[in-house]
């Protein structure tokens, strides 16, 4: 088998499964997001309830998975409980290689179980296993530890699972895999929870054949060499994504305290460099990735009541959690935000949405829109991480009406309690950590999943900061559109976006040839637009309205590195983006 083609369908309601061969579909869209989008359109009925049994979960890997380095991501598509629309989330770990080794290109999980289950998929062996004994374990790491002992395939498997937040249907609950990697954004964890699906184990022992063995080894060596010698990759290995903290702060593009400020004076205290020097305990990699960007801090704390006794927690950090659970909440103490991250990890929440939600709540509390009655006695205060840790638990447990509202995201909470102007979400998804200029915001507003990773507007902004002329709103829209389209190919292959500099068009065409897929550059362009349009079709079908775009006023109050934002620019650019999307020929 050179390109994947098998799709495993699982019906949790009836506890049955079957395998389809979808060779044509994989030939048309390669895999990953391209195939998953088609499967979502096929399997998700119109206006399906995100937390109902009809909402399918689609996992897909690509033709390069298991063959080439850095092709280590799995794409998940579903209808998001956070936005009520397209949900797309990617994770690495061992998930992709495990799914491909099990012989599948994609998996579709439908229905919902009456009693808690976990799925155990070892190649063609598919088992529905009783999870009533582990339902209720709030700690996602513990769930992994339990399942690990129950299942075979150590080193060759992925264990996806949810924590307490997923069980309690928090709209931004994540699915954790291999302890530190997540299908983080848009609430896949809640969809798992709604299906009473506690965990999913996949392993397998299938080899992947190629067309030309000699050429395969040669191209592999070229890609491998490019990966280990690339300066970008070195940066991600050495300091990790947290290396972005200082430069973004210096540019004045780092959202601080719910974006009341674009930078913080004493940022050195929490820089990536400080974290590595003082806390780095281990670096970890996804399967088949030489970079090892996953940075784990070792936090050693004394037990309060026992002298000379310490516990060491291994806490994964990245730029985004440092932004959302550090800077955004005014926590400028490494121990503080590490503990908060640990709590968020344990509960199985998306770090970004949780941080932005707490930042909104803190400001609402300050302004008297909510009081201690709502917060169950907590006085939310910038920098007070101990209080935030308790608040995180309340969110994960949806302890009262207020926390339940907060567990549905800031869009929902602010429509209930007020404070829309400083509720920092775009398309109902909480904002990422870039306040670099107009184009990052156009990207958040137009991107199919309202993420910074859709079209990387922050990178366009940074080019302008570096001296390029600011493009017109229409030009900006076109640039973002092209970037988002191209990323559909990367996400169909599925390669890590950090390696986008290595996987340029020629390399991709060569690699595909080795998999037996002969394409030319224009085919890829055509395919990229088609995939993007398929997503847009789904979004329109589910009620996405290009006319009603809410832009939180806060972003106009705080200056960006490119000056005060102009609402007219943003709106015009957004408008021309959607025009491009509907344009027939591109």
């Amino acid at each position, binding site marked *: 088998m050179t390109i994947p083609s098998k799709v495993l369908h699982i019906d949790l309601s009836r506890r049955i499964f079957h395998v389809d061969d979808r060779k044509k579909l994989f030939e048309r869209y390669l895999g990953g997001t391209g195939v998953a989008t088609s499967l979502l359109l096929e399997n998700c009925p119109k206006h399906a309830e995100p937390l109902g049994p009809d909402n399918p979960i689609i996992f897909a890997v690509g033709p390069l998975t298991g063959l080439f380095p850095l092709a280590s991501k799995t794409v998940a598509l579903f209808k998001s409980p956070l936005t009520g629309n397209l949900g797309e989330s990617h994770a690495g770990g061992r998930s992709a290689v495990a799914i491909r080794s099990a012989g599948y290109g994609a998996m579709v999980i439908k229905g919902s179980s009456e009693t808690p289950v976990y799925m155990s998929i070892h190649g063609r062996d598919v088992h529905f296993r009783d999870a009533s004994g582990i339902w209720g374990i709030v700690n996602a790491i513990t769930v992994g530890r339990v399942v690990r002992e129950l299942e075979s395939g150590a080193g060759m498997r992925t264990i996806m699972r949810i924590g307490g937040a997923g069980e309690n249907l928090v709209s931004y609950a994540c699915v954790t895999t291999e302890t530190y990697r997540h299908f983080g954004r848009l609430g896949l964890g809640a969809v798992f929870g709604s299906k009473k699906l506690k965990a999913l184990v996949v392993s397998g022992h299938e080899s992947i054949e190629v067309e030309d*063995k000699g050429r*395969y080894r040669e191209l592999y060596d070229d890609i491998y060499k490019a990966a280990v010698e690339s300066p970008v990759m070195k940066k991600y290995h050495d300091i990790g994504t947290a290396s972005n903290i200082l430069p973004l702060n210096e540019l004045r593009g780092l959202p601080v305290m719910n974006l009341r400020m674009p930078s913080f004076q004493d940022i050195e205290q929490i820089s990536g460099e400080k974290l590595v020097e003082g806390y780095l305990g281990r670096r970890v990699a996804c399967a088949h990735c030489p970079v090892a960007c996953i940075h784990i801090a070792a936090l050693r704390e004394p037990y309060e009541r026992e002298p000379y006794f310490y516990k060491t927690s291994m806490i994964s950090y990245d730029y985004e959690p440092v932004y959302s659970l550090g800077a955004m909440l005014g926590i400028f103490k490494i121990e503080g935000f590490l503990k908060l991250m640990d709590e968020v990890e344990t509960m199985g929440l998306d770090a970004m949405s949780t941080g932005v939600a707490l930042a909104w709540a803190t400001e609402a509390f300050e302004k008297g829109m909510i009081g201690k009655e709502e917060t169950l006695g907590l006085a939310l205060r910038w920098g007070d991480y101990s209080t935030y840790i308790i608040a995180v638990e309340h969110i994960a447990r949806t302890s009262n009406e207020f926390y339940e509202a907060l567990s549905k995201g800031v869009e929902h909470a602010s429509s209930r309690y007020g404070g829309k102007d400083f509720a920092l979400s775009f398309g109902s998804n909480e904002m990422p950590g870039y306040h670099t200029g107009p184009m990052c915001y156009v990207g958040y507003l137009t991107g199919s999943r309202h993420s910074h990773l859709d079209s990387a507007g922050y990178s366009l902004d940074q080019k302008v900061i570096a001296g390029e002329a600011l493009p017109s709103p229409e030009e900006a829209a076109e640039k973002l559109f092209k970037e988002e389209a191209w990323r559909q190919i990367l996400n169909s292959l599925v390669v890590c976006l950090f390696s986008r500099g290595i996987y340029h068009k020629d390399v991709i065409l060569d690699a595909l040839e080795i998999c037996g897929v002969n394409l030319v550059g224009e085919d890829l362009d055509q395919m990229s637009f088609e995939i993007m349009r398929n997503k847009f079709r789904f979004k329109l079908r589910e009620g996405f309205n290009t006319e009603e775009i809410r832009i939180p006023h806060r972003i106009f109050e705080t200056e960006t590195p490119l000056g005060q934002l102009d609402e007219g620019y943003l709106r015009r650019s957004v408008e021309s983006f959607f025009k491009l999307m509907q344009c027939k020929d591109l």
Partner: protein
Amino acid sequence: MAKCRHDVRQPLLRDPRALRFTKDYARRSRYGRYRSDGESRRRNILFTRICDREEEYPVREMINDIELLSYYSQMSRLTIVDVDRCVGCQLCMFACNRRFGIGGIAKSALLVRSAGGFERGFVVIACRACPDPPCMKVCPTGALSLRPGGGVLLDRSKCIGCRLCVETCPVKAVFWDDELNKPNICIHCGYCVDYCPYEILEIKEVEAG
């Protein structure tokens, strides 16, 4: 497809390219690891030449051929230098499969797994090249024979797939190929070494005697 049923060593030794390969290989094992590109590339091409003769050699024989190569690196041994540096990327496992020109990790003769969760680091399980291998002693068909540098060589035509070797290995370094229903045995060829970005693996010379 012409099968080569007799001693598979013969055609290989007669092939001048294979002879050059073995010389190259022997030199490599004598001087330990090297990373120069030219060398890697040459070795790669040689691997390819052998693996690509698929028409003459069905998969099983092809694998036997590669195992034969270990005769010429017989006094070398794969060792794990510092497992604490391991990031768990499994590039060594993928390399092990790529010897056969295939992707995935199903034919890997070494395993990187977590030490009970990624938070606890990794364990690299590889053949220790025992001088008196337990796996060999339990093989009921004599498919495993002693490799001069320690460890074993597998004769696939004798193997009946009973898995006794897997069960017996105390470090669990005999892995299973579900597709062929035969064990994956490390031949200490060192192909994986060049693909470990963090220098955890090394090929070392075994002292004679």
